[in-house]
């Protein structure tokens, strides 16, 4: 009876095209609702960041609106272009503001439709990666599937997994509220797709573009270099041949093309918008001191020591200065996010898993963490599910712990911000719970993951 049961299961799953249509309709409805809601309520549905992007786009189109002329050397000499960085808290690449120029001349919600479209593209990329690179090599999926319709089974499975992303409330709420994370996810997934297709040059260009958009995707370069090195060295040991290939021609070509893309994009933006671009898009993020609205336990230390110019006081003992040093979080963060890339990247077919671990550890140990950061790694979960061998009870427990830690923190933050209770200490304790519980969730996922066996990946 089992094969018939499986066939019935497959038949109940709609095609991927249907899923895309449902996802698109859902997003259009939410965007239309957001327009109605914002017009009738003081508390807006739209994220404040969308206002920031839209204002930045307006400033580009209208130089001299508020004395906001671009300050780059090229712009000063040849062009009169507006400065998006005249908008306070605009801390992104100017390319994002340029993408949203139609907000001004077409429709204010154009950006939301763009982000929603990126969501759909991401769903399609997830589906393709599953169909081409993961499901065909995951034998444990369907031991009882009839040999007649493995493709149909795979399509159903891939559609179900893509649903995790496309119908994830976190995902569609973020994009329809006007957060631009979907664009970065498109770049990252495209990089991953090309990497798995072994189209090295395309992967390098996409990685450079991703890193220009936000710096953190640089970490994926380490794992990809490790992966392409591993593909050319048969032995999986850490011998001289491997280490030599790590800095060999192929790896260097990839690194140069990727870095070159990043530098060219940065140079163009600097030429037009000058130091404000460098500072707001990159330098600001290296020394962020978010003392508020920040899941990381470092929020309280930052707040208590803010008046010490962000650094350690010279009056403190050496070990106190060490405790306050940013290196206490930076070293674990970089060791894990880069080290796992180097070490786990040797499992070249497991790039989605490696990138998930790298991103998770990067976010977990970052001194700043807001809800939007979680999408950077939840993006990869549909690609991992087929290869994670844990019971459904453990899945539920992981989900409950992951969400529960955030809910605990948010409840206490509400007590602090809106009810004025002195719960700084309690909020900090919940931040520690967030770190510990999310580390546990990562541990469960890693322990349950079944790596590809190398012979399957020729």
């Amino acid at each position: 009876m089992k094969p018939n049961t499986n066939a019935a299961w497959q038949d109940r799953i709609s095609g991927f095209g249907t899923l895309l249509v449902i996802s698109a309709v859902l997003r259009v409805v939410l965007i239309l609702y957001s327009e109605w809601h914002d017009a009738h309520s003081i508390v807006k549905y739209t994220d404040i960041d969308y206002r920031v992007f839209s204002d930045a786009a307006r400033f580009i189109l209208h130089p001299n609106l508020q004395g906001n002329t671009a300050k780059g050397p090229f712009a000063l000499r040849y062009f009169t272009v507006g400065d998006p960085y005249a908008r306070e808290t605009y801390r992104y690449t100017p390319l994002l503001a340029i993408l949203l120029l139609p907000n001004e001349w077409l429709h204010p919600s154009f950006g939301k439709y763009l982000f929603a479209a990126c969501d759909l593209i991401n769903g399609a990329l997830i589906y393709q990666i599953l169909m081409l690179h993961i499901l065909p090599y995951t034998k444990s999926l369907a031991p009882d599937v009839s040999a007649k319709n493995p493709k149909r089974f795979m399509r159903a499975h891939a559609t179900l997994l893509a649903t995790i992303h496309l119908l994830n409330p976190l995902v569609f709420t973020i994009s329809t509220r006007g957060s631009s994370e979907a664009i970065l996810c498109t770049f990252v997934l495209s990089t991953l797709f090309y990497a798995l297709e072994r189209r090295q040059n395309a992967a390098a260009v996409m990685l450079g573009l991703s890193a220009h958009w936000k710096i953190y995707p640089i970490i994926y370069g380490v794992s990809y270099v490790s992966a392409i090195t591993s593909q050319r060295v048969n032995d999986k040991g850490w011998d001289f041949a491997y280490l030599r290939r790590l800095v060999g021609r192929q790896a260097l070509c990839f690194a140069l093309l990727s870095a070159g893309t990043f530098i060219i994009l940065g140079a163009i933006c600097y030429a037009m918008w000058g130091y404000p671009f460098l500072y707001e898009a990159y330098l600001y993020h290296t020394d962020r001191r978010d003392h508020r609205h920040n899941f990381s336990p470092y929020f309280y230390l930052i707040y208590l020591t803010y008046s010490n110019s962000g650094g350690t006081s010279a009056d403190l003992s050496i070990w106190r200065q060490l405790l306050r040093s940013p290196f206490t979080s930076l070293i674990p963060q970089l060791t894990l996010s880069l080290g796992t890339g180097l070490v786990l990247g040797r499992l070249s077919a497991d790039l989605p898993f490696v990138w998930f671990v790298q991103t998770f550890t990067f976010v977990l140990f970052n001194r700043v963490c807001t809800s939007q950061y979680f999408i950077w790694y939840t993006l990869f979960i549909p690609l991992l599910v087929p290869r994670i061998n844990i019971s459904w009870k453990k899945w539920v427990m992981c989900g409950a712990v992951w969400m529960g830690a955030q809910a605990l923190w948010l409840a206490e933050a509400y007590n602090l911000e809106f009810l004025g209770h002195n719960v700084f200490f309690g909020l900090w304790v919940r931040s520690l719970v967030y770190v510990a519980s999310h580390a546990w969730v990562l541990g469960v996922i890693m322990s349950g993951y079944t790596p590809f066996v190398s012979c399957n990946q020729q």
Partner: protein
Amino acid sequence: MQAKGFHTTLSTNIPLHALHEYAACNLFVLHELPADIIVDSFELNDHGLFFQFVGNTNLELPTSGVANEPGWLLVAVKPETDLVVVDVPLHVRYGVPHEGHNPRHIIQLLPPTCFWACPSSYKLLHSALPSQSPKFHLLNSSVQFEILQHTTSSPLSFDIPVGDINHTLYIELCTVTVTLLAFVYIVWTISKTLYSAHLKMQ
């Protein structure tokens, strides 16, 4: 009334008498706000307020990160009825940490100055705005002012919690300890994953 928490709306009631006598004038509310208070210009736009703000526009810094200078918010009001209500959303920066059990900080607001601003051709008026208030371009065409009495505003003070600096050492130690423990746990789990992969390949 005292606001608790970091977010509130300052509501000012302005009873107007002899409205017709000020037909050529404009009605304004001037708030002098301490450095602890955050004014979000974009939020005020959302509330449909017509205003000018002179002061620190950084929305993100704590009190210890800004200069101890007041901000000035001038709101233009349409006097359509005998009683005008002006609601201004305000937010509070995290205050300077103190010592002690459950430390708190009280922020007092001065009552806002409500006034008619009239052109020079108007009848002679004798009021003056606070001397330390800055020049506002919204008042460029007005040279005479009539300050209104009997206006009421609420809340005029904030009672906010602040961090306890006695926690600092404890926070430093435990934050680093938990971070390192999480790091060690993840490294251990990665080692297990690699070993499992190695066994599979064997």
